[in-house]
């Protein structure tokens, strides 16, 4: 591991002042792992673990403000989250292990990096190593013709097909969260849909953060009255595994018809995948299996599977149909 300067920031201002050329470290569950693999080689770490961003507080508008340092366990087990945003609690508890959830933070999970085996290779993107445009732009993508059973089918490009690994982010996409950041140029709010970037020709740029910006909070909007929310995750084994396909649905049914619906999917996209197509196919429709299937077809319409991950397309459709049934039951 490359050595680094280590400093502990006592306040947000001090963290921002020290941020130049360094990385913030919170739970460390992604960053330390990738530093050991030589994937991350920061010259400095700014430890933000003592910043006062560890609260979950109601907002005046009826929403919920989650501090960036709130641990995944605490968020998933928070009474307000379990009651009003069940999809978020379920998504978090379906991911990683209890130990990792005790460490990982809300802000850190937004920045979780892909599990693509080529991306994680210590020598990827270097001469003699596998090509990885995320590690070193222009070196190619070994996954395209390589081992890609777990890779994405939506949002891919000819430069990168790496899957976004987070469960929490899928729920937040369906909940239409907002991400608050603070940086050298001040504070700003980034809508969830604009935070993660598609790989396109620049897979090394994964999100909308500017250099030196720190995630401070995630705001959830006021819960939808009378809506039900569900997260369903399908994977190779029943726990402690990444999604092959997952779905987060928030739905409100009145008189047997869908009056509000938000759909996001995980395990199949290069970013947490909000499906406006599925939502459009469902709005105002009667609650029945045929409409769910139509919505699932719409969600996967643009899927571009490769040899070994083609099974994900139908798996994802069925995952969404099942989740819609649960959310409208």
């Amino acid at each position, binding site marked *: 591991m490359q050595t680094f300067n280590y400093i502990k920031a006592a306040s947000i201002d001090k963290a921002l002042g020290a941020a130049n050329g360094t990385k913030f470290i919170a739970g460390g569950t992604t960053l330390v792992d990738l530093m050991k693999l030589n994937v991350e080689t920061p010259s400095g770490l700014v430890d933000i673990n003592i910043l006062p961003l560890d609260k979950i507080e109601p907002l005046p508008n009826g929403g919920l403000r989650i501090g960036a340092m709130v641990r995944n366990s605490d968020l998933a087990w928070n009474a307000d989250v379990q009651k009003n945003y069940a999809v978020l609690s379920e998504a978090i508890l379906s991911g990683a292990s209890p130990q990792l959830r005790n460490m990982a933070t809300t802000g850190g999970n937004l920045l979780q990096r892909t599990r693509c085996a080529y991306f994680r290779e210590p020598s990827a993107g270097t001469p003699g190593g596998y090509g990885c445009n995320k590690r070193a732009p222009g070196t190619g993508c070994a996954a395209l013709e390589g081992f890609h059973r777990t890779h994405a089918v939506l949002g891919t490009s000819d430069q990168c097909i790496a899957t976004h690994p987070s469960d929490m982010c899928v729920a937040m996409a369906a909940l239409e969260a907002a991400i608050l950041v603070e940086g050298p140029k001040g504070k700003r709010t980034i809508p969830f849909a604009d935070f993660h970037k598609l790989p396109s020709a620049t897979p090394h740029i994964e999100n909308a953060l500017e250099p030196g910006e720190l995630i401070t909070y995630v705001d959830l909007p006021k819960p939808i009255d009378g809506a039900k929310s569900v997260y369903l995750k399908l994977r190779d084994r029943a*726990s402690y595994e990444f999604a092959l396909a997952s779905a987060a649905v928030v739905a409100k049914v009145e008189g047997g018809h869908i009056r509000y619906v938000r759909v996001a999917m995980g395990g199949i996209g290069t970013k947490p995948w909000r499906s406006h197509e599925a939502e459009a196919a469902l709005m105002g429709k009667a609650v029945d299996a045929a409409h769910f299937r139509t919505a699932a077809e719409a969600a996967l319409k643009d899927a571009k599977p490769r040899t070994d991950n083609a099974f994900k397309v139908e798996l994802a459709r069925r995952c969404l149909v099942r989740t819609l049934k649960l959310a409208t039951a």
Partner: protein
Amino acid sequence: MADSSELRFKNLRPPTQQNSAGELAPDQQQLDLEPLTPEEPKGRFSRRSFLSGLGATGFLAGAAPLVQAAPSVEPAPADAAAVDGSDAVSLRVNGKEYNLGRLDPRATLLDTLRERIHLTGTKKGCDHGQCGACTVHINGRRVNSCLTFAVMHEGDEITTIEGLGRPGNLHPMQAAFVEHDGYQCGYCTSGQIMSAVALLKEPIGPSDEDIKHAMAGNICRCGAYTNIVAAVRQVRAERA
């Protein structure tokens, strides 16, 4: 975290330039965990002076040349290591304070517990947060000690398997693992027990299925899972 496809892939990878030259991959490099030679704190900033006047002016600008001079892959020379300042790092483990002198910031909590403090009950399995062998408690909550740096834990209350119980005075969970034969080779056992003790305080459901999910972060290669669940079930019942 435990990505089976990735492990398969890792075993299949052809030799790269790096490892064909006989060098260790970066994740296999050993950190020098012996006490570092004390040296004059010339030009360094202490933690205290840093925290009170961070202001970005001095610290990073002053320290940057040290980092740039260090080769990117090889372990850095000792004098580039403890850039946290000249203050000694101390950790509180099992109720006892350990002054560790200056500590390489790259030292994980796991390596520090084992190699510096010589509490070797905590085991290194995968070293990547996938197996749970390194599970310890920090402020009463279970974590993977391989995925966190020791310098991040000054002031925290760290508990290892050595702090739970002792021969003749076992923690009930340790006794239950013995009674139910909740191990075979024993390598994962300290991590299993640390996880099992922590879950007693977590809001998980009452069933065996809940125990299994709550223990999912601890892998047992011998497959003692049935007996591990029996041990945890017994202690939960005693405490109910």
